[in-house]
């Protein structure tokens, strides 16, 4: 044993000592660390430095549970104490607390709702087991069609060829959608909205688990069909569907299919949903699709599944040579689109169902964050304003020994309590608003935090984060008070951090005003759309879809005559499309056309009454007419844009189109030029259009009936009776043309509603904050107001004085918000080929509205202070 004096001093291990110092409370640190070191030195003498170090480490570790236990105990006691104080503060000033909780709750509710939506949008198609290896084959062709040069439809022979040529393609399936198929089961007729022809591989690619039937054989029989559970229930009720017969109707034939299996309902967060699947190969037997194996017939959707860890880019780069080999040149470019990106990132034409819009989701998400930020800012503003009333409390706490950290914790506790209450309110709000919100975004969003294991932690995190963010600045601000100043009452008027609070007001109002500008912009564009002369009429036109009803289509002449017998039916027209949405495009062709003339032209097939029903105007030549029998052999009306594109000064009488039975456009004489009308949404410019007199009834999808404004219910009943006479097995469905027209702008209407709601909300929250601040300032200046009034100031003068300070920040907010709103709206309006212009009054109006609301709020709040009797206010404090 070495004497203590003889050896050099060995310090205890640094890590252990540090840990110890950090864990120990201040008042015990010196004692405990001293004991540890003394004991350590003894151990060094007895067993040597190394053993002593190990001993020290173990001793520290053994101390940890004891210290932690103590720490938690004290935290709980302090927490309870803070909670009581927070609760007392809430109770003491109920209005202020209500404003605070309400503001935060509104912000959080909106945030939760929108994040549910965003999460739903991002979840599309991700539930498939092989989601990462599934791709859709899409085609890129030069020349944009309705704003995109990509299309989801590809030729059918591509699928087998892909499997044959590329070993990395595990499966490929062709899918063809057939909406509005009539089927019957015994006596009962059903209209199938989601009938699909698909290869059996569909079940290998997608995770559509079969409840009945075997994955490998379920579509083996050419006349087998598989149903979704929902559809099986609809068609068969409680009866076992497997083995049942479904009769499929085409225009002239019927086919019997046997149900061979049932698959679980496809979740709503899929980019397409199927209800009945029949084997793809049978399509050629049922419909006369002699061109099905033609590489030029881009009519099918092809999905492929690749081997794990296949690089789709490499495969994509091999596609041009592959296509060249099979189909020759001039086929356009084929691309692979990952399944999970179809919903949000596709601007692809002819998809199986409408997809979402990533920009809308992004916009939604950013507004959610903005609203939440405004709510937090609101809390900060109110809390700081309020805290100046509590300076004495803080000063006293500090004097009796509270550390800065403890005060910070106390005020964070305050904000956490308020946040928690607001959070509960927000969750209640979400539950209340969810049905309306679901309808608004048209998504089946569910909110069930108790069931949803990823949602609950997210919500808790949100509440904690909001509490921390909202509470942090007030907590640091307040804890920095100097007790000496705070206890002298003069301290209360020493307002620090004023620029920041004013900055927060500016931020709140700038955001509100920018949103108001956006609201006004979107609304004005919507008004523009509503009022713009589209070139066609859209009032009092009833549209019947006749494509689904083959017997109606076959008897279209008789139906028309029958309908016209009613005096309230003015005219009836049959056509391929409707004038607001003509989307079939082809290349213009005419006898003597040189190969260098490449004029894309949209085409509509119609009958003699089309122009009359929709009120389209002739500028040159004449309308189709039964008085000219030659029209029946082929006649065209072109629009002014087509005339210009073709460069023909006098096109009337010229030949147009090419010969052949199913060729577009068919050969015929141009009989007239029709005035340009908006044949597509206002997003797209008016382009060359050819209205061809339909050579046969197979072209007709719609029957448009122009009716008189009187006796509409009776007229509709008559139309219904006629329908039931000609197509008793089909459910009677009609739409008014103006509804169809409005539906095309639903995205814009939704945007308008969304902006209005958010603008209202942000203005509301911002006003809550302003209300708190104004009342605080009025309170602070009680004496000043009193003295001013004694010296002769009027009430209105005092109100003006108090308001001016805030209103100047609102004015500044305008200056910031206008350019933001301007650029946002300008870029949005650029999506439209025809748009309203942004005018100065829009901006002034938005600014003025915000200013007026703010002034009203402040005025009301300060009036009380200004109207008070100066004798009382001077004696205040």
């Amino acid at each position, binding site marked *: 044993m070495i004497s203590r004096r003889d050896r050099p001093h060995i310090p205890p291990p640094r890590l252990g000592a540090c840990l110890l110092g950090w864990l120990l409370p201040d008042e015990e640190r*010196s*004692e405990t660390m*001293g*004991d540890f*070191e*003394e004991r350590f030195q*003894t151990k060094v003498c007895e067993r040597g430095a190394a053993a002593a170090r190990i001993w020290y480490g173990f001793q520290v570790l*053994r*101390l940890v549970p004891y210290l932690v236990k*103590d720490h938690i105990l004290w935290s709980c006691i302090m927490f309870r104490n803070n909670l009581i104080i927070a609760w007392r503060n809430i109770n003491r000033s109920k209005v202020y607390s209500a404003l605070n909780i309400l503001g935060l709750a509104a912000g959080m509710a909106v945030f939760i709702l929108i994040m549910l939506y965003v999460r739903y949008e991002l979840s599309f198609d991700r539930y498939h087991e092989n989601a990462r290896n599934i791709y859709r084959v899409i085609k890129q062709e030069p020349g944009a069609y309705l704003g995109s040069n990509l299309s989801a439809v590809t030729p059918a022979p591509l699928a087998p060829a892909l499997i044959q040529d590329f070993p990395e393609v595990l499966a490929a399936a062709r899918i063809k959608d057939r909406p509005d198929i009539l089927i019957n089961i015994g006596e009962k007729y059903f209209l199938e909205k989601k009938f699909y022809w698909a290869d059996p591989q569909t079940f290998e690619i997608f995770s559509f688990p079969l409840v009945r039937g075997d994955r490998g054989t379920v579509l083996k029989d050419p006349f087998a069909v598989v149903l979704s559970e929902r559809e099986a229930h609809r068609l068969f009720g409680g009866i076992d569907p497997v083995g049942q017969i479904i009769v499929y109707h085409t225009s002239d034939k019927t086919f019997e299919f046997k149900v061979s299996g049932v698959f679980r309902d496809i979740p709503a967060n899929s980019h397409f949903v199927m209800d009945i699947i029949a084997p793809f190969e049978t399509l050629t037997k049922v419909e006369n699709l002699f061109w099905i194996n033609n590489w030029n017939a881009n009519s099918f959707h092809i999905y492929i599944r690749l081997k794990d860890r296949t690089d789709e880019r490499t495969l994509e780069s091999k596609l041009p040579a592959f296509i060249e080999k099979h189909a020759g040149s001039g086929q356009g470019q084929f691309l692979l689109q990952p399944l999970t990106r179809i919903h949000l990132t596709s601007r692809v034409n002819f998809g199986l169902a409408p997809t979402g819009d990533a920009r809308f989701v992004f916009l939604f998400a950013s507004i959610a964050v903005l609203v939440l930020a405004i709510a937090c800012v609101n809390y900060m503003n109110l809390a700081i304003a309020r805290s100046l009333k509590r300076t004495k409390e803080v000063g006293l706490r500090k004097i009796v020994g509270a550390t800065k950290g403890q005060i910070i914790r106390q005020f964070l506790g305050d904000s956490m309590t308020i946040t928690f209450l607001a959070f509960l309110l927000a969750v209640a709000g979400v539950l209340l608003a969810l049905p309306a919100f679901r309808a608004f975004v048209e998504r089946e969003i569910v909110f069930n935090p108790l069931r949803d294991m990823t949602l609950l932690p997210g919500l808790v995190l949100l509440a904690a984060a909001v509490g921390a963010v909202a509470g942090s600045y007030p907590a640091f601000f307040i804890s920095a008070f100097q007790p000496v100043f705070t206890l002298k009452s003069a301290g209360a008027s020493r307002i620090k951090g004023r620029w920041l609070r004013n900055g927060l007001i500016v931020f709140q109002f700038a955001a509100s005003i920018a949103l108001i500008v956006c609201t006004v912009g979107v609304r004005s564009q919507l008004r523009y759309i509503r009022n713009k002369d589209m070139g066609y009429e859209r009032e009092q036109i009833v549209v019947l879809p006749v494509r689904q009803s083959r017997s109606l289509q076959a008897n279209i002449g008789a139906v028309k005559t029958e309908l016209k017998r009613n005096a309230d039916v003015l005219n009836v027209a049959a056509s391929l499309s409707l004038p607001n949405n003509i989307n079939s495009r082809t290349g213009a062709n005419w006898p003597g056309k040189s190969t260098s003339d490449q004029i894309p032209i949209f085409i509509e097939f119609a009958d003699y009454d089309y122009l009359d029903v929709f009120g389209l105007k002739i500028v040159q030549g004449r309308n189709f007419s039964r008085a000219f029998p030659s029209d029946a052999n082929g006649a065209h009306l072109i629009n002014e844009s087509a005339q210009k594109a073709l460069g023909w000064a006098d096109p009337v009488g010229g030949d147009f189109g090419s010969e052949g039975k199913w060729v577009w456009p068919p050969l015929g004489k141009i009989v007239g030029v029709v005035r340009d009308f908006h044949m597509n949404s206002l997003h797209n410019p008016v382009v060359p259009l050819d209205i061809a007199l339909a050579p046969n009834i197979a072209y007709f999808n719609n029957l448009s009936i122009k009716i008189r404004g009187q006796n509409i219910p009776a007229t509709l009943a008559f139309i219904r009776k006629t329908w039931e006479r000609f197509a008793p097995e089909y459910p009677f469905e009609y739409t008014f043309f103006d509804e169809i027209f409005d539906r095309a702008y639903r995205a814009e209407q939704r945007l308008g509603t969304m902006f209005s709601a958010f603008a209202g909300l942000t203005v509301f929250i911002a006003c809550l904050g302003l209300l708190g601040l104004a009342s605080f300032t009025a309170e602070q200046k009680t004496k000043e107001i009193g003295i001013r009034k004694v010296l002769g100031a009027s009430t209105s003068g005092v109100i003006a004085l108090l308001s001016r300070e805030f209103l100047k920040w609102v004015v500044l907010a305008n200056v910031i918000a206008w350019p933001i709103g301007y650029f946002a709206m300008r870029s949005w309006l650029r999506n439209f080929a025809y748009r309203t212009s942004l005018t100065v009054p829009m901006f002034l109006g938005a600014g003025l509205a915000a200013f007026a609301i703010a002034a009203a709020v402040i005025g009301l709040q300060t009036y009380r202070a200004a109207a008070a009797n100066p004798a009382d206010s001077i004696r205040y404090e």
Partner: protein
Amino acid sequence: MILLSRAEETVLLAILGLKEKAYGVSILEYIQQKTGMEWSLAQTYDPLKKLVRKGYAVKTKGEPTPERGGRAKTLYRLTNQGREALVEIRRVQESLWTAVPKGVLTP
């Protein structure tokens, strides 16, 4: 009156035995020496803290020593309450022991 726990009693007795020199390390060493059992410092702090909170012992500041890295010792002294508690627990124990019939524990 709440009875002392075994650890509190042991520590109190150690403070009493050490007279004026009772502080963390000396208490630990005293207990180890008397009981022959290995104790950790953490095991002494817990009862020490409780004793101080209950008012059975008080802390005073001692002199710093080089072995302690220049830190002052915290010395512990018994209060009158502490003495009473010890007397009480001894009385309770003795009455319990005398109540045990002879020959039950020892053959």
